[in-house]
């Protein structure tokens, strides 16, 4: 733990200016992840800038039929919103599958997708971690990999000493749903406003695992837009975890099925718990476009999607089970979504 300065500026622009001016500054939203990191020494900011009262706490209708979620709306508020529950059940379900009631009352729309991995080594400053301390190595490789990635990792045995190695997963449930919804992120930064397609917000480790997203220093999420879904679209979130509540996903699936007839049918599938970012199963979606969603067809499509998956060995038996589990969970989710049709 390290002392830090705390600021509560009067406007979003001022908050952005303060953070941009101080390399060691961070934004504070609901604080459900950052405050833990302050205690653990995972985060050691010089300046904490509280934006909880600055960004919008409104959920508003957009002219195209979509919804805009202000960055300060809480997970509880979004999950309870009637429009969200009716039009985007996948998002309401994902939010309610995350954390606990108390945490959801604090966690925000702007902050939730930016929470950091729960890799046990990332959270333990006495162990090596390229994400926390670039260049120190990756303790997760060959370690406790149950909650780690199988997609977007280079091989089944990455080099634990290499500076680019990271097999962490992104822990957010909300983000998986937002990925499936093709949400759009509004950002205000030192250079002004920009929008980012949600699928481009998070990044794979690449050569810099310390960066979870494409956001630059001082860039603040101000709102997230949910584009309208096609008429008659159905959506659902299925989270598979080690206990019935208050656990991160081993595998989760956000799915959207649209189209009145089989030939017009489109499917969107996003996976959680399997990669450094919410994973859109683009190859599977393409294969399933306009086809009957039989268990065989979905299983085949997921098999193609997962051809690059790399099971990670580990001290607790490794995480190879996630590969069949991902397919089985997608099959079950799509079966449930199309059961009455």
């Amino acid at each position, binding site marked *: 733990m390290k002392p830090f300065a705390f600021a509560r500026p009067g406007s979003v622009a001022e908050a952005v200016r303060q953070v941009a001016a101080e390399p060691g500054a961070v934004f504070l939203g609901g604080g459900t992840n950052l405050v833990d990191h302050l205690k653990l020494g995972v985060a050691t900011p010089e300046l904490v800038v509280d934006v909880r009262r600055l960004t919008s706490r409104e959920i508003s209708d957009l002219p195209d039929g979509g919804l805009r979620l202000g960055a300060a709306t809480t997970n509880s508020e979004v999950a309870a919103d009637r429009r969200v529950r009716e039009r985007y059940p996948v998002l309401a379900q994902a939010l309610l599958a995350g954390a606990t009631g108390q945490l959801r009352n604090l966690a925000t729309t702007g902050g939730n997708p930016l929470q950091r991995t729960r890799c046990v080594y990332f959270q333990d400053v006495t162990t090596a971690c390229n994400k926390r301390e670039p260049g120190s190595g990756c303790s997760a490789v060959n370690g*406790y990999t149950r909650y780690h990635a199988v997609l977007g990792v280079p091989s089944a045995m990455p080099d634990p000493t290499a500076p680019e190695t990271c097999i962490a997963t992104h822990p957010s449930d909300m983000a998986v749903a937002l990925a499936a919804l093709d949400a759009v992120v509004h950002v205000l930064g030192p250079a002004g406003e920009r929008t980012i397609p949600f699928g481009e917000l998070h990044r794979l480790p690449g050569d810099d695992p310390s960066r979870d997203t494409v956001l630059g220093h001082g860039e603040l999420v101000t709102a997230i837009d949910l584009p309208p879904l096609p008429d008659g679209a159905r959506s659902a979130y299925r989270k598979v975890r080690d206990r019935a509540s208050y656990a991160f996903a081993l595998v989760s699936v956000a799915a959207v099925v649209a189209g009145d007839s089989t030939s017009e049918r489109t499917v969107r599938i996003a996976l959680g718990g399997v990669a450094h970012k919410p994973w859109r199963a683009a190859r599977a979606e393409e294969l399933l476009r306009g086809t009957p969603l039989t268990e065989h067809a979905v299983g085949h499509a997921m098999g193609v999607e997962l051809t690059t998956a790399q099971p990670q060995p580990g001290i607790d038996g490794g995480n190879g089970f996630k590969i069949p589990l991902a397919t089985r969970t997608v099959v079950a989710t799509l079966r449930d979504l199309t059961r009455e049709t």
Partner: protein
Amino acid sequence: MTELLEPRAIGRGLVRRDGEAKVRGTATYAYETPVERPAYAFPVQATVARGRVTAVDTSAAEALDGVLAVLTHENAERLASTDDQELAVLQSAEVAFRGQLVGVVVAGTSELARQAADLVRVEYAVEEHDSELVVDHPALYKPEKVNPSFETDTAEGDVAAAMATAHATVEQTYSTAMYHNNPLEPHATTALWDPSAEVPLTVWDSTQGVHPDRAAVCEVFGLGQEQVRVICPYVGGGFGSKGTPHANVMLAVLAARAVPGRPVKLALTRQQMFFLAGYRTPTIQRMQLAADRTGRLQAIAIDVVEQTSRIKEFAEQTGVPTRMMYASPSRRTTHRLAPLDVPVPSWMRAPGECPGMFGPEVALDELAEALGIDPVELRIRNEPAVDPETGKPWSSRHLVECLREGAERFGWADRPPARHREGDWFVGTGVASSVYPTMRMATSEAVVRFENGRYVVEIGAADLGTGAWTVLPQIAADALDVPVDDVEVRIGDTRLPEASVAGGSSGTNTWGSAITVAAREFRAKFGRDPGDGDEVSGSVDQAAMDDTRAAYAFGAQFAEVRVNADTGELRVPRLYGVFAAGRIINPRTARSQLIGGMTMGLSMALHENSVWDPRIGQVANHDLAEYHVTVNADVGDVQAHWLDEHDPYVNAMGSKGIGEIGITGTAAAVVNAVHRATGVRVRDLPVTLDKVLPGLS
């Protein structure tokens, strides 16, 4: 035979006397003790699993304004006794396990103490460590005794011959994980060293026994008992981890003695508890069962391999229940330990019986399947007439009745067939037996005094949240033959008469016996019309004790498990337990204890698992987000019932102890139900979805 108390207050479900204070938040726990100008201590822990501290740089920590002391092995006071290496804090440069204490910072605020602790730089000469338990570890040895003083190995008959010739055999290896007790209240202490005071050391500690706690502090610091007072009115759970003081208590006292006159508070963080507060060793259980055609056991054997630390031995008595549970002409139990570079294992709820009722009770299920005999019936067929271990008659044993009543309540006779499927879920049911010995500690004393028209009972007992504040008045009221409202009980302070630890499910038996002796003596001496200030003390060693009989509580647990056919997710909608544990003093607190134990057993079955990382020598998932304890959403209909069991041999209350039996056998019942549902036999805990997935397609 003992003359049992006439139950008037006993048997009533009185509400907890401390309940209101806890709900209102006015019950003060150790860390919250109101003291003047408290200072705060924060530990520095070793970051290597084995080696020597070669250099310590405390200058950055000491330079912070408000830091009062930085202690390491270089400047800490020399302790009077270092016999117990776990408690010999900051006495040497040796590091015996990762996370061991290598320093402590005392500062004016908790934040400052923590910041300064981060600034202490420690260098090590690292040695190769060995922290991984394997069944054929080259250093396995036979301990002299197993906890607390049982024979390490026992043998009778010829197990090998029976295995070679029996109609049916089971030979399998089962394993239980490493578990951490994780009480809600962390290990916490407020300590004040005031050399000018009549009692120079006062310790407000979260402990399962103020007197044993004081004895350990006195031993380590070379103090007389009259120099130390330990106070603990409330405990937020212990589960054995506060039954014997761990290094944190000694560190708090050491820190307090470095800043005389200034009270020092030290609470372990949840993460630190995974290194310093004890844990249950993982166990590897090699089981052999041999049976004739009718299911009667011809042999039962358990060979246990588990771990201990290099600096202090703890030998979990995992094989002990196999010595007495079922009839068999041939029997063998053994224990072997691997001494490793690991934190010191210790007591956790039902040491011995908890892991030791896993392997045998799953093996019995496998035997039942092999023989085509119902698993309830198989257990009934192996009911021993007398204690197989000692040949003594039972004080009372109603396992068969528990099995039958449980089967009736659960609807066992109509249970679905194997691999029964309802919608997306496979459904299975399983059964296992429970057992826990009825214990009474050798030392405890109670005073009964008539004071301002009420009866005051004083005994330094502990209430872990379990109900001692409430049940001891019930016992005293019946022993004195007065309404319970006329009795005030004072506990949790070494100024009160000496009491034993709340452990081994012995608290109520022991303290209640001492109270009963004192109360009867009081009535004999002063009659029914005592004068103000009249008092008598009584000791448990004056209470009748029938050691010609084997005394145990028994039970049967039934689980319904649902396994999702797509994902392997496991749910337990029903868990029923029926127990025969003598007379139940207070049904309200008893039910809470029993369903708490069963839920903890469910947690062991499905969730709890301290994942050991042998590369670095620590638990990888060392917080409550990653170390999963069963949550409300996992718990369906958990029911605890009990038989109206009369046992005149155990003590004047006729009570057997209920704190631990609930956790025994539960995991086996769940595993047996998972097998029934899916056909997958999981022999290593916990049962997680990845282990059942291969059996679902």
